């Protein structure tokens, strides 16, 4: 347990989480106008399909996989008890990771190669793409070299992650990990750290509330019953649409 390990696996996670929480909340309150990704599908649609679709669906499945291993490690280990099921899980995850890598490559080619997309790109966009790409490559290398990740993640890394959230960081297991795995963990926290400063905030405003709301939306500026409420001048419910 070198000082570097302590920094990377104790300090960095907390810094990342605090900056993530503070940054996203501050940004939502201060600059809500910019709280989305700057969509470029309007300028270029064809390459976007081959990039965005494999990336997004793949990354959603991978995130879900990591989340399940974090939340229900015993269930994952139980599932992996049968070699066939373990193989199905690992192969599926590997394919999703390949689709993410393919998607990221297309997105990168598009962002750097198309003049129109360059006009709406920032350095942060390229940085985020590079970060995600590095993270995906690391994940693929780990999956290939250190089998079987779904099992040892649940057994060794879930306790570490839980210790972080329990405010009793225990980095013994992580310190003993190969450097590929260490880099992957560091990469994950760097991505969390980058969320408030980049287009990644759009994952926080995924419009799932659309499912429940009625299709039509009518907003009244001067509903008489409210205006005539003597309290409304000061304490009226906030406008519903902001």
């Amino acid at each position: 347990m070198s000082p570097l390990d302590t920094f990377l696996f104790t300090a960095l996670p907390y810094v990342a989480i605090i900056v993530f929480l503070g940054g996203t909340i501050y940004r939502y309150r201060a600059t809500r106008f910019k709280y989305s990704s700057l969509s470029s599908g309007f300028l270029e649609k064809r390459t976007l399909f081959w990039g965005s679709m494999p990336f997004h669906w793949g990354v959603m499945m991978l995130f879900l996989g990591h989340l399940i291993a974090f939340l229900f490690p015993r269930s994952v280990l139980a599932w992996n008890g049968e070699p066939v099921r373990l193989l199905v899980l690992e192969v599926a995850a590997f394919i999703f990771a390949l689709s993410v890598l393919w998607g990221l490559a297309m997105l990168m080619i598009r962002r750097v190669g198309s003049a129109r997309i360059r006009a709406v790109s920032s350095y942060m966009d390229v940085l985020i793409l590079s970060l995600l790409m590095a993270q995906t490559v690391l994940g693929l290398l780990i999956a290939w070299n250190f089998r079987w990740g779904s099992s040892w993640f649940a057994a060794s890394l879930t306790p570490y992650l839980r210790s972080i959230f329990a405010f009793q960081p225990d980095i013994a297991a992580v310190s003993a990990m190969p450097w590929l795995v260490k880099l992957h963990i560091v990469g994950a926290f760097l991505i969390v750290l980058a969320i408030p400063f980049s287009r990644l905030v759009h994952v926080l405003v995924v419009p799932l509330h659309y499912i429940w709301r009625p299709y039509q939306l009518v907003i009244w500026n001067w509903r008489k019953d409210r205006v005539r409420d003597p309290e409304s001048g000061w304490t009226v419910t906030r406008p519903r649409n902001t």
Partner: protein
Amino acid sequence: MDIRAQISMMFHLDKCIGCHTCSVACKNIWTDRKGAEYMWWNNVETKPGTGYPTKWEDQDVYKGGWKTRGQDITLRGAGKLRGLLNIFHNPHLPVIDDYYEPFTYKYLDLIESPAQDDQPTARPVSMITGKPIDIKMGPNWDDDLSGTPDFARRDPNLANLTPAEQEAMFQLEKMAFFYLPRICNHCLNPACVASCPSGAIYKRGEDGVVLINQKVCRAWRMCVTACPYKKSYYNWSTGKSEKCILCYPRLEAGHAPACMHSCVGRIRYLGVMLYDADRIQEAASAPEDELVDRQLDMLLDPFDPEIIAAAKANGVSDSTIKSAQLSPVYRFVKEWGMALPLHPEFRTLPMLFYVPPLLPVMASVSEARAADQKSKMAPMAKKWEDDWLYNTSTEELWGTIDQVRFPIQYMANMFGAGDGARVTEVLKKLMAVRIHRRDVTVGDMKPAKVKATLADVNLTPEQADEIYTLSTLARFDQRFVIPPAHREQAIEMLDFTGDAKGSVGFGFREQPARGN
């Protein structure tokens, strides 16, 4: 009965000269910004033509508007399930090339060019990338049927016309066109509102203006797909959708929208309509041949005491009801039945109505002997010296309408969901008013015939005079009857001032520039 007020519009196409003044007025006020250069919240199209964006009416391509599903309706290309599944890539989203790549010229090169043998030129450059481009398309490059093989012949409204009819439309001798100015229809059943995953688009309860809250918009772009009129535009620079706001800041101050105020031909009318919001669903789900009737049925009589009482009970202010009674749109649409919605089959219940144009239908030139004409003149009438005349065929009662040179079916595809009889009825009314006025001012027609003409379209001479007056002589305040906004009663009309109380300044002070 849930009575609401809607600021509604009427465009008299017979008067439109296609000058684009409306478009320019709008552009100067609202869309002269980075990312909005290509947007024309108001645009004027030549019909037949493919319009802007190219072939916007073809919903097989763009999947806009609503379609029926059993007794109900559903969004064609967006909606809860389809919208969320397509959120990573919307296959039906139009791209910038469907509109045109905005461009400017390097004017500075003309001034700063060093001395040389050749004249310097101002090269066109893209306003997106700043790089030189070959301009391939502009917002109105099909004006006046220019580039007809590329544009007019690909008009989606030609779909159910026979090849012979289509061919006739483009013969030099028979060629005819008219202009179609378009703004947002501020629909009663807006597809853009329904499609917005973020819930950023809403209809203002008081006047029905459809707006996009820029702070809530998250650039999912479903509204661009869902609007069948393609009047919601994506700003590629700010990452927000924008659309016509019916100049609501002007309306609130009692001014007419910029496009209407600047209209040279005075074709535009604006006024309040009262409607029954409980019948929206029913009217939008009606069978195709009943769509127009059901929509017109929803619009209520502002003079009916029962309706006035119900409107007041629902919070519609007295001044708004008064505006509804004076509304020129109500007179044209309901009282006289002369204005029709554009493409009712998209089922959004658009509240911009059009008087279809009579001129391209009737104005064929034929040879006429001056002497023959002269003999028909009343003694008081002017001397007739022209050997040519617009063949208005007044010999037969409806000669003009029956012998159209412009297929009625084409106009019916635009204004009547394919029902030609409905368009013919309006054209007959337009013609009847002309015949009546000709009788009044020229007096060369048999009284019995004039009477029969008016009777045939159920108009009295007094009504015909009113139509004539409101069509041609109407003053500014008769064309635009704007209800007072009652800001004094608003909780939040622009910004909720309570939010800014105790802080410096008011409201939204964030630069639209994006870096992330």
